[in-house]
Structures are given as structure tokens and as C-alpha cells.
């Protein structure tokens, strides 16, 4: 699922086509009050919030709205809450006690066992995930930036054709590619290596798409011409001017690709057979698969899942902000 849905963010990126300001304000998490007056839908209501009684919606409406939102929040947060509670339980308590309440909690003790089980394989998986996602996203961002910049700022034969082929790549489901890619990689001896997961992760057609749109809008031709007249080479112009001017788009591409690689399951599952190379998701499913025979692995799976979710939760807070910034940035040219 993740693959296609990541794309949603991508292609929707130039969707809104509206003013960047109001979204920005809300995206920073300051709430609608911070947005300029009149720039945002529901302005009447915002004024009401500031105390102008005339336009305030009836109390009944506000109570209904708040209750519905609360019920929805319960639905989204309950599994997360269960995970927090359960990560403090032993395997037998996991089965024997009520799931939504604590019982004899030993969080640090159990988490310590997760981290040290099987010579600390969990830490290794975690490091692998960080490496795949970190290195992969960084390389993907640089490659996308260079390609997007070239497609936006140079005129050469075949430019539109190349761009259209890359765009089509956005729409090909990743999991349909993974299996043939495995067959191909095992043919050339790359399967079951770090490269098998890293190489496909650095190709981000969506990144190229976003970088092209952004570079076309944010990197002025006149500035490039001025730099050329000053005698700067093309590579130097790109690295000093292009990359700097494209930074906001690059942050968006990096974060998206990071989450995409971190969440990717099918590709590593197909490519890797050596558990030392596993990313965290794959490692946890292997624990889950053995839990029938080794019941303590239930507890480790839960504790490991809890630990693995923490960094992404933090990243979500950051991503939410950039993600919406990215949406409006994509729309600059629309």
C-alpha cells in the first residue's frame, strides 16, 4: 500500500494551485489564528473564536463536532495505546491480562531484553533500516535534484520524451517491479546484498517530477546567465546556486523517500535471505513467525514494534509540516 500512497503526495503536490501563505501558517502547527485574516476558509468562525459572538456557531454544533472528532481520535489512537501498554508486559501477561490496562509493568527490563536478544540483532536491524533509509533518501534526493534541474533549466532534444517516461515510472506499482528486479539482480549476483535494497531505493521518479516543477519556478534563468557570464562552470552553478534555491523541495523529497524506504517491505523481503541484512520490519516479521515455537518472541515482537514506531512518530510531526509546505510549493507553477 505504501508505495502508491506515497505517490499520492507526489502527484497531488501540484494539486491545490492556491496561495501558499494560509496553508503555511496552519502547517506550522500554530493553528488557524496565526493565518492572515480572511485568507482562510472558515474566517467567520475564526473571528467567533476571538470573541465576536455574532457569527459563533451554535453550541450544539460545536459539541457535535468535538464529539465526532474525539470518537475518530479514539479509533486512531487506541492501537497505539495498546502497543504502549503491551510493550511493558511479559509474554504470559500479554495473554493473561486485560490488554488495555497495565499489569506489573517493567518497561525498561523488557525493552532491554528486546535490544539484547540474539546478540543484539534488533539493534543491527535498526541500524540497517537507518542506513537504507538515510543513505537511500540522500542519494535519491541528489539524483532527483540533478535530473529535475537538468529537465527544467536546459533545452535539449528529447527532453519532453524523457520526462514523460519518468512520469510513467511514477505510476508503475513498486511491487510489480520488485519481483522481476529480484530475478534480474540474482542473475547479476546482486541479490542478498545491501546493494539489492539500496540501488532501487535511490530511484525516485516522483522526486524528479517535484524537482523539475520546483526548479522551473524557483531558479531564475537570469541568475544562471549572470553566473555563466562571471565564468562559473555548469556543475559549480548547480551546486552553489541550484541546490541552494531548491532546498525546500529537496527537504520534501528527502523526507518522503526516507519514509518510503523505511516502510518498504516487499523489496527487502524479496531481495534478502541473510537476516544480518534485514531492515527492521523484516526482522520483526521473522520474530513473529517463530513466536509459535518460542513464546517470548511475542513479547519481543511487541516491544520491538513499539521501539521501531517511535522515531517515525517523531518524523511524522516534522513531515506533517514539510509535507504541507511541499504541497503548496509544488503548486507554485500550477
Amino acid at each position: 500500500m505504501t508505495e502508491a500512497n506515497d505517490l499520492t503526495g507526489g502527484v497531488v503536490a501540484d494539486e491545490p494551485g492556491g496561495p501558499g501563505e494560509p496553508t503555511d501558517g496552519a502547517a506550522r502547527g500554530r493553528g488557524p489564528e496565526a493565518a492572515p485574516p480572511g485568507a482562510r476558509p472558515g474566517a467567520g468562525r475564526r473571528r467567533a473564536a476571538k470573541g465576536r459572538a455574532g457569527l459563533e456557531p451554535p453550541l450544539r454544533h460545536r459539541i457535535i463536532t468535538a464529539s465526532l472528532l474525539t470518537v475518530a481520535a479514539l479509533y486512531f489512537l487506541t492501537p497505539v495505546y495498546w502497543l504502549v501498554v503491551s510493550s511493558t508486559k511479559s509474554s504470559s501477561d500479554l495473554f493473561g491480562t486485560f490488554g488495555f490496562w497495565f499489569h506489573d509493568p517493567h518497561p525498561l527490563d523488557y525493552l532491554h531484553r528486546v535490544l539484547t536478544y540474539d546478540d543484539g540483532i534488533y539493534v543491527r536491524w535498526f541500524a540497517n533500516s537507518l542506513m537504507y533509509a538515510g543513505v537511500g533518501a540522500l542519494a535519491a534526493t541528489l539524483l532527483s535534484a540533478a535530473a529535475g534541474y537538468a529537465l527544467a533549466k536546459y533545452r535539449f532534444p528529447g527532453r519532453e520524451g524523457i520526462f514523460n517516461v519518468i512520469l510513467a515510472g511514477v505510476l508503475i506499482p513498486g511491487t510489480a517491479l520488485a519481483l522481476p528486479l529480484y530475478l534480474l539482480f540474482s542473475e547479476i549476483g546482486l541479490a542478498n546484498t545491501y546493494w539489492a535494497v539500496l540501488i532501487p531505493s535511490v530511484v525516485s521518479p516522483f522526486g524528479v517530477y517535484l524537482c523539475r516543477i520546483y526548479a522551473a519556478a524557483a531558479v531564475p534563468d537570469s541568475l544562471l546567465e549572470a553566473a555563466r557570464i562571471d565564468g562559473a562552470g555548469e556543475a559549480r552553478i548547480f551546486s552553489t546556486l541550484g541546490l541552494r534555491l531548491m532546498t525546500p523541495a529537496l527537504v520534501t523529497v528527502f523526507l518522503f523517500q526516507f519514509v518510503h524506504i523505511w516502510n518498504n517491505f516487499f523489496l527487502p523481503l524479496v531481495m534478502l535471505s541473510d537476516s544480518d541484512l534485514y531492515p527492521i520490519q523484516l526482522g520483526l516479521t521473522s520474530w513473529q513467525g517463530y513466536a509459535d515455537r518460542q513464546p517470548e518472541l511475542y513479547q519481543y515482537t511487541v516491544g520491538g514494534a513499539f521501539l521501531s514506531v517511535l522515531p517515525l512518530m517523531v518524523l511524522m510531526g516534522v513531515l506533517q509540516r514539510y509535507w504541507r509546505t511541499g504541497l503548496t510549493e509544488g503548486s507554485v507553477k500550477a
Partner: protein
Amino acid sequence: MRGAPRRLTRTEARSARAASGFLLPFLALFLLCFIAPIGYALYESLLKVERTGPLGLGGETKQVWAGLSNYAHALEDDRFTAGFGRVLLFGAVQIPVMIAFATGLALLLDAASARWVGFFRTAFFLPYGVPGVIASILWGFLYVPGISPLVEMAHSAGWDVDFLGRGAVLWSIANIVTWQFTGYNMLVLIAQLKAVPGELYEAARIDGASAWQVARHIKLPLIRPALVLTTVFSLIGTLQLFAEPKVLKPLSNSIDSGYTPNLAAYNEAFTSNNQHIAAAEAVLLALVACVLSFGFLRLVGQRGKDGESG
């Protein structure tokens, strides 16, 4: 322009050289990871393995031309076609539910009093940060009798639930997907709502429209493009369903090896060692996804020109 033809050509040559320098690293890897696998899958799908020796059991194997027999085999396999049908049924129910849910939340958040909007938005978006596998492990625990507090609560209320039974498990998977992606789709819709000029609402309010009328007659029509996009991409995502059934499979007898097309192709390649049929199934999967993608391209066709250099 006509005045300096020599200089122009030089600039053009320089431009093309620089552009290829920037483009080549990406294009080389794009070729390796996107174009080559498609070509290789097509090639593999047209071959089959033939064994030589007595009774076809000899050690010698060789690849021979198979024509379209792998495709015929895949399409005649009831489990594979049932998986396709199942996934389409899944999409026909889950996607409308999820999009309606996301739309409702987006409109509610847009209308809510400001103080709690940030909290709710983050709470709804949080599951998007949980990888599909982890979400499936998590919900798997919440479905399994013996561990699940939900099942326990239902039982003590005298309600006999079985989340993993034959009729229910598909919708239990639908719940996992809905849980993960509603908040994400909601953010897409909110972004579109924010892009609508505020004066429009002001005018409607002055004309005496109620909050409900504004939502129904102004906001909904205006976010239609985002609704179309989220729907089409959810459909492509649905075709790729894999992690959820794979993780739930050990917990439920109702999930077979061909439960979704992707699971079928995976098992064909790694359990049955039938990579030629697996390749054919992957090609069929990509083909169906392509049909949908082209539908999408037609819907938003004019948008592709936005990247034109200014």
C-alpha cells in the same frame, strides 16, 4: 537570434552536454530499476523450464520457449483470478468508506474551533507513520482471541466476534488499510480546502448559508480533484495488497497462498519455485495497474504540462 548562429550552437552544445551530465546518473539507475525489470519480466514470462531425462525427473533442466502458456496458466488458476476479484471487491468497498471518512474528518476539522485542530490532525495522521507490516502485526494482536482486549470486551458483552473468520478477514484487512491511510488522505483534502479563497465562504455566510450548506455546495465540489486523485491512487495501492494478508496469514485459515495477486506471484516465485509463472503474474498485475494509471492520466491530463520551464 539570427544574428549570431555560431554562438547559439555553441551554447546549445554546451547546454546539452551539461544536461546529460546531470541526467545520466539518474537515467542509468532508472533504466536498471524500472525499464530493465519490465523487459526482463516480459522475457521470463515467455519461457518455461523443461526437464530432460527419464520421466522428466532428470537433473538436466533447460529453458524453452513457452509462448503465452504461462499467462494461460495464471489466468486458468482459480486462486489467482479469485485473488484479483477479491482485491477489486476490497477496493469497491474499502476505498469509498475510507475517502468518505477522510472527507468527513477534513470538513469537521475545517469547521472545528481552532484550539484542538492541531491535536486532532496529528492524531489522525499518526498511523501513516506506522509501516504496513507493523500496523498488521499490531492489529493482528487486536484480532486474535486470547490476546485481543477487543475480542474479550465483545465476548463479555455477549457478542461472539471472529475477526479472522472466512467472511470477516477481508474486512479486518480493510480496517488496517483504512486506519493507516485515512489521515493521509485527509491531509491531502485539507490542503485542497485551504487553497480555496476565503471570500467564497464569507460571501456564502453573508447570504445566510448554514455550515452544512457551505460544506455540501461549496467545499465538496471544490475538493473534487483531490477526491479523484486519492481515489485512483488508493485503487492502485489496493492492487498491490501484500503485507497485510502476509502478516495475518499465520493467524487465519481463511487466507490462502493466492489471497491477493501480489501474494500469489510471491508464492509462485518463492514457494513453488515457478519464476516464469510468477513473472507472468507480475506482468498481469502491472498491466491492470497501467490501465488504471492511464485512466488517471486522462483525468488529469492537462496537468502534465505544469513542469514547463519558464
